């Protein structure tokens, strides 16, 4: 009697090749969609000699339905589980292929970058991978990585949102690639050296395009940023959590420069990124006896990491040891799913895959 389950002994799935790599797909007949559950096993089970027990029935039924409707296929949809199991400790047993590269494939970063809440998160993740984990990616993961990277570059070239983030990523990536290519033979580099050289050329090309960002000329003669009243311009300065943005905006007009030097603005920035205890250790006073908050910020950021803030991050379920996006969910077996969740920072994501 064949055993039908979801491990390596199961019948397997059908696969289709897409630009994002191989994806699993299932036949689906949407006319009968809602009625599928109503069809009984007896109707499908032509071979009455087979006897199935327990929840194996459901899996068997799925397979039978799939075969049964094979000839009635009206449409297909791409099916992919958007979560990945993370190995807790190093054991011989494997529940699935779970390396960093595989996580990268399964968690669908292509669509994540279109979501403004996840964009920074994905870019920071790519940056960390570029710094230290490139050699651990499989061939498919590498292709996927560069695919996502290309989508990001196209997006930024198109909507001009936050180019500095991408430029930093490409910088790190090109330095790492230069080192790896130079040391070919000494370090483990998966893939033909020519592919890597080609990728490096593409990156250099992208960097050039980003440095010459073509911002369309504003035709309207309406209001612009410098026409806003002072406290409105100030309001916008207070929205930045990155000191670079404050400095750069301050170099745009003399008015903005004056506003960007405001002590209170830098005080708020210090309070946002660092703790009170850290202030005391590095207190800097100006000649008049006031605290020089701008100087303090730059001193503090030398010693302590700045606060990382993301709109939406990957979640890790401690109970099932599964990594997933909030809206895709995962097959949780805990009694109280919400209590097991922790958000995962980009560094934490990398660490999860180090045994």
């Amino acid at each position, binding site marked *: 009697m064949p055993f039908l389950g979801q491990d390596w002994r199961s019948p397997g799935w059908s696969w289709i090749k897409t630009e994002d790599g191989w994806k699993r797909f299932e036949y689906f007949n949407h006319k009968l969609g809602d009625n599928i559950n109503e069809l009984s096993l007896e109707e499908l089970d032509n071979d009455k000699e087979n006897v199935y027990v327990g929840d194996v029935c459901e899996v068997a039924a799925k397979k039978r339905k799939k075969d049964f409707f094979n000839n009635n296929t009206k449409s297909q949809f791409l099916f992919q589980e958007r979560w990945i199991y993370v190995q807790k400790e190093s054991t011989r047993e494997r529940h699935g292929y779970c390396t960093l590269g595989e996580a990268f494939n399964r968690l669908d970063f292509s669509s994540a970058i279109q979501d403004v809440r996840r964009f920074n998160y994905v870019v920071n993740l790519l940056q960390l991978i570029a710094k230290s984990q490139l050699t651990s990616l499989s061939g498919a993961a590498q292709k996927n990585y560069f695919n996502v990277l290309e989508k990001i570059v196209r997006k930024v070239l198109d909507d*001009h*949102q936050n180019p500095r983030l991408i430029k930093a990523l490409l910088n790190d990536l090109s330095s790492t690639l230069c080192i790896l290519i130079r040391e070919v033979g000494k370090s483990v580099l998966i893939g033909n050296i020519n592919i890597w050289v080609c990728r490096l050329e593409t990156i250099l090309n992208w960097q050039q395009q980003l440095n010459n960002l073509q911002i369309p000329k504003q035709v309207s003669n309406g209001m*612009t940023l410098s026409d806003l009243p002072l406290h*409105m311009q100030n*309001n*916008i300065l207070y929205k930045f959590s990155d000191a670079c943005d404050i400095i*750069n905006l301050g170099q*745009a*007009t*003399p008015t903005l420069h004056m506003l960007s030097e405001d002590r209170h603005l830098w005080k708020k920035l210090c309070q946002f990124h660092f703790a009170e205890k850290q202030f005391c250790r590095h207190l800097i006073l100006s000649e008049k006896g006031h605290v020089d908050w701008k100087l303090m910020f730059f001193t503090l950021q030398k010693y302590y990491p700045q606060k990382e803030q993301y709109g939406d991050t990957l979640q890790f379920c401690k109970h099932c040891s599964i990594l997933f996006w909030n809206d895709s969910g995962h097959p949780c077996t805990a009694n109280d799913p919400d209590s097991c969740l922790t958000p995962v920072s980009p560094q934490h994501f990398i660490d999860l895959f180090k045994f």
Partner: protein
Amino acid sequence: MPTIKLQSSDGEMFEVDVEIAKQSVTIKTMLEGKWYTGVDRWVTPPNVSSLICPQVIQWCTHHKDDPPPPEDDENKEKRTDDIPVWDQEFLKVDQGTLFELILAANYLDIKGLLDVTCKTVANMIKGKTPEEIRKTFNIKNDFTEEEEAQVKQVPFTLWHKKK
């Protein structure tokens, strides 16, 4: 449903529900003022043109069931990626309109609208060099050469991370 009329700076009248108009703290204060007893009531917010007025009304109508914004003047949060999808679509307008909406939200004291419009502008600035910022907003470079040299002197030693 009691309504109130808003008169734009160029004389056009727009009628809107009182409950929706009350999202503007300025209008709310005026309505609750003792001297405001006229039956045929209208308000003239300063410098709000007839093009911007309906847009403001549209935003307020969509957000009429929102909870009142928290009294957070300290601005502890520095998020700009949490603009709701409807607002993102609503704010896909030319820059002139965007800045006029900021002004209108400021005069009418509508915190929610002011918040999302300023965040949208902040997103247009983030990650750009000063030259790119000037190009984005068509701002003239008002610095003299000496001023510019002085302003660009960001002490790079300050940026080095302690290893």
